[in-house]
C-alpha cells in the first residue's frame, strides 16, 4: 500500500476487525511517519466530533414550537371542516332552488293544457270531500267548481281513468237534479253546458261546468 492509497482509505485501524486491506494499512502506518501523523490527526478529529455529538445529543426543539404547531393544526382543520360544511350547504340550497323553480313552472304550465287526465285525478281526489259537503248547482256550484275540474256526482263510484270519456251536453239546470244534485229553483229553467265524465257502463260519474257557462 502506498501513501495515496492509504489517504483514500476509510478504515478505523483501532477496530479489531481483520482483513487484507486493514492489515496492509496497519503495516503502512508502521513504516510511514507522514501517514502515521495523518492517521493520528484523523483519529483525534473523530474523537472530537464524537465529543461534539455527545455535547449536542440532548438538544431538542423548545416545547413552544409544539404548542404553536398544534394550534395551527387545530385552526387549519377546523377551518377546512367549516368550509366543507358551507360547500355542502351551498349545493343543497342550489338543488332546493332548482327543484322549487321546476315545480313552480310545472304547476304554472299544467292547468293551461286542459289535460283530461288531470281532471280525472282531481275528480278522484276531491270525491270524498264533495260527497260530504253535498254540492249545490248554481251560484254555489260555480264557487265550488272553477269550471276546469270535475266534481263527483253523489252516489257515483270513481272508475279507472282510461275507461272514462268526457261528453259535453246542453241541458236545463233543473235536469241536473236527476243526477242527484241540488238545484237552485230560481234558475231551474236556465240552459247550461255541462261536461259529463261517463264511465264504461254509460253512467255519468262526475260533472263540470265549463268556464263560459259558469260565468
Amino acid at each position: 500500500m502506498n501513501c495515496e492509497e492509504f489517504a483514500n482509505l476509510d478504515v478505523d485501524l483501532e477496530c479489531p476487525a481483520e482483513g487484507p486491506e486493514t492489515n496492509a494499512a496497519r503495516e503502512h502506518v508502521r513504516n510511514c511517519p507522514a501517514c502515521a501523523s495523518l492517521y493520528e490527526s484523523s483519529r483525534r478529529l473523530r474523537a472530537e466530533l464524537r465529543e461534539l455529538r455527545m455535547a449536542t445529543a440532548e438538544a431538542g426543539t423548545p416545547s413552544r414550537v409544539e404548542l404553536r404547531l398544534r394550534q395551527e393544526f387545530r385552526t387549519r382543520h377546523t377551518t377546512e371542516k367549516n368550509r366543507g360544511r358551507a360547500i355542502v350547504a351551498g349545493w343543497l340550497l342550489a338543488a332546493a332552488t332548482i327543484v322549487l323553480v321546476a315545480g313552480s313552472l310545472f304547476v304554472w304550465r299544467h292547468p293551461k293544457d286542459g289535460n283530461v287526465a288531470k281532471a280525472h285525478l282531481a275528480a278522484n281526489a276531491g270525491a270524498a270531500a264533495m260527497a260530504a259537503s253535498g254540492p249545490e248547482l248554481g251560484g254555489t256550484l260555480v264557487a265550488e267548481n272553477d269550471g276546469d275540474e270535475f266534481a263527483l256526482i253523489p252516489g257515483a263510484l270513481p272508475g279507472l281513468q282510461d275507461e272514462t270519456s268526457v261528453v259535453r251536453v246542453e241541458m236545463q239546470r233543473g235536469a241536473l237534479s236527476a243526477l242527484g244534485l241540488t238545484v237552485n229553483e230560481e234558475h231551474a229553467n236556465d240552459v247550461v253546458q255541462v261536461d259529463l265524465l261517463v264511465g264504461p257502463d254509460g253512467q255519468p260519474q262526475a260533472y263540470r261546468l265549463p268556464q263560459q257557462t259558469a260565468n
Partner: protein
Amino acid sequence: MQIEDQERDEVLLKRSARGDEDAFTQLYRRHQAQIYRFALRMTGHAWAAEEIVQDVFMMLVREPKKFDPNRGTVGAFLYGVARNRVMKHLERQPREFPLEVRNEEGETKVVDIADQRTPAHLAEMRERREQVRSAVLALPPEFRETVVLCELEELSYEEAARILECPVGTVRSRLHRGRALLLAKLEMLREVPRRANAAL
C-alpha cells in the same frame, strides 16, 4: 423494526392529514429532535433551528400530500425539507457562525460530559469543542451537511445518500474531503494561539 417504524410514520401522516391531532403530535415528537439537531449543527443558531423545525412541520400541516411514499421514508422526506430550509438560511446569512446552544429560557446551555474532570481540563475541552464546532460551521454547505449527517447524526452512507439525493460514492468522497478540510481548519485555529504564545 425499521420497516414497522416507516409504516407507523405513514399511518400517522395519513391520520394527521385527515385531522387527527394526536397522530400529528406523535409524528412531531418522533422526528423533531433529529431535525432540530441537524438544523442546529448546520446553522449554529438555536433560533434558526427552531424556525426551521417549525417550517418543516408547518409544511406537514398545510401540505401533507407532498410526501410521496414511493420516494422514501417520512424521516428522509422531513430531512430533505429541513435541508432546503437550512440552505435558504445559509444563503441569507453566509458569514455568521455563532456557536451557542440555548435552552428554552434562552440561556446558553453547556453540556458537561465528564463532571469529575478538573476545571482546567473542562475549560480546555470546551475550547476544543468550540473549535470543532467553528470548523464544522466554516465548511462549505455540501461538505458540512455530509459531515453533520454521517459524523454527528451517525447516519449510514446509504441513509445520507437518500437524504442528500446523491450516490453513495459522492457521500464517501464528500466526507473524505470534509474531514480533510476540518483537519486543516482545526490546525489553523490551533496554530494561531500557539504562535501567539511563542511570540510572548
